[in-house]
């Protein structure tokens, strides 16, 4: 019975969220799109980092690949935009699969460094690649006509899919394998877990979501530049969102993303100080609540939630 009524609330929540663009103003819609995109990417990043022990500092690879693929396919090859988004997702997943071979053989901090370096190499390649505009960037003119009332939905869908993916993954056989790898990779391997296949599957799924986030982001922002499309600041932001809220929980990034987007807008007015202020607040949160905001709330209210909530 408890389960049933829980689903009812989820349905109500989704109904409110899907109808939101019909009655909220333009600015809030913009903020919500950012909120959903960061949420979607941070959910999978947090799951990978906390449960599977895969701490990637290179997820910007997929933001950039998603953005560039979507823009190039629909502008230069005349492929419909929605199809370009889907193809970019598949391409991102494929790239993640390829990168798994060299990168996932590295562990812990070496994997993190490896992913970051891979992102730098790809950024340099795009900076010199005239076809995609090289260092001048790429303007995605075809996306000018797409209003935020439309972009809102793929962003919302990505966030919902990401949350469900994390939930299902956690409770799946693969999730068990990943959690054992995150805890002790050697022992897991000794118990029959094919650690490479498990980690690669997780990395590919997370990167698929991240690529789609990059694709939707470029339709929203209509401009690509190698230094920002492949910037480490993407992954740092996902990390912040996950960590502020509570890394490895599902609710945590929801709170984290809301705070992150709100901070971004609030502090942009304090000219020149915004970076500093944001950094200080995040630092303060992390010192006061090292487990993240959500973990603190759920402990205070004694919710006794079952992971990964």
């Amino acid at each position, binding site marked *: 019975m408890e389960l049933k009524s829980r689903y009812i609330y989820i349905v109500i929540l989704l109904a409110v969220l899907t109808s939101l663009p019909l009655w909220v103003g333009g600015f809030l819609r913009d903020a919500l799109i950012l909120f959903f995109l960061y949420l979607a990417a941070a959910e999978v990043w947090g799951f990978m980092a906390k449960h599977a022990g895969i701490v990637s500092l290179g997820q910007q690879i997929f933001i950039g690949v998603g953005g560039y693929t979507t823009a190039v396919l629909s502008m230069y090859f005349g492929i419909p935009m929605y199809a370009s988004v889907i193809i970019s997702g598949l391409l991102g997943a494929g790239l993640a699969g390829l990168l798994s071979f060299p990168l996932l053989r590295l562990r812990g901090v070496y994997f993190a460094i490896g992913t970051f370096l891979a992102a730098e190499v790809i950024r340099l390649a795009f900076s010199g690649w005239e076809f995609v505009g090289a260092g001048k960037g790429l303007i995605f003119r075809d996306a000018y006509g797409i209003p935020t009332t439309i972009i809102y939905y793929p962003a919302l869908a990505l966030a919902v899919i990401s949350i469900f993916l994390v939930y299902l993954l956690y409770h799946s056989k693969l999730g068990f394998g990943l*959690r*054992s790898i995150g805890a002790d990779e*050697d022992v897991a391997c*000794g*118990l*029959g877990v094919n*650690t490479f296949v498990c980690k690669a599957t997780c990395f590919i799924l997370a990167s698929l979501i991240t690529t789609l986030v990059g694709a939707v982001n470029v339709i929203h922002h209509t401009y690509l530049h190698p230094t920002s499309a492949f910037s480490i600041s993407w992954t740092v932001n996902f990390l912040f969102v996950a960590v502020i809220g509570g890394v490895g929980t599902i609710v945590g990034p929801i709170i984290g993303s809301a705070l992150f987007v709100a901070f971004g807008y609030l502090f942009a007015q304090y000219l020149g100080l915004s970076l500093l202020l944001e950094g200080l607040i995040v630092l303060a949160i992390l010192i006061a609540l090292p487990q993240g905001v959500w973990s603190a709330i759920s402990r205070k209210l004694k919710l006794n939630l079952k992971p990964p909530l």
Partner: protein
Amino acid sequence: MIGMLEVIGLTKRFGALTAVKNVSFKISEKEIVGLIGPNGSGKTTLFNLISGFYKPDSGKVMFRDHEISGLPQHKICKMGIARTYQIPRPFLEMSVLENVMIGALYGADESLGKSRSHALECLKFVGLEKKKDVPAHNLNVSERKMLEIARALATKPKLLLLDEPLSGLNPKEVAQARELIRRIRDDFGVTVFWIEHIMRALRGVVERVIVLNYGEKIAEGSFEVVSSSSKVIEAYLGEKWVIG
């Protein structure tokens, strides 16, 4: 008797140190074999070679007539070799039941539902079923030892490698654990290869004992024969009490 494990001329070097030197032996199905030797004699290295964690420098490991040396650990586990660790290495954040389920899910390749009931059986067998929902980091040493055994059993092994399962246990627990090891063989038909530092703990349970010293096999035979061997006594000189 059917051959379970055959080790032929196995050698492993770490730099200048030869941790395992040209070791050969055989273990038959449903045997319980003890592996003893002073500290640093290469016992755990030998386990790591059999379970696939290390690759041998020379020699080979045959498991039920198939060569397994060089295969990755997870494949060897699926073929039927499970192990425990001298210092238990449970997945600390996961519950006791979940720990055991990993073995059932992957080692025995079971579905989620099947693995849950199978894992519960294993926990019952080692007497940990009351703690199934406790996070593994809340267990004490002896419980962790039992968890390791349950987790290894859940992979449905044909050969179980136990690395000092009795260390850290009190006398009462030692007696229970010895009984448990015997039952693993008698009830499940699992062959057991058992590292023990305290030689007397093996008495009355093992069929045979293999003795390592400085990476070399110095004796093999029944407990009585080995424990009175002058070579073995010499190797243990200074820590004579452990022979018992």
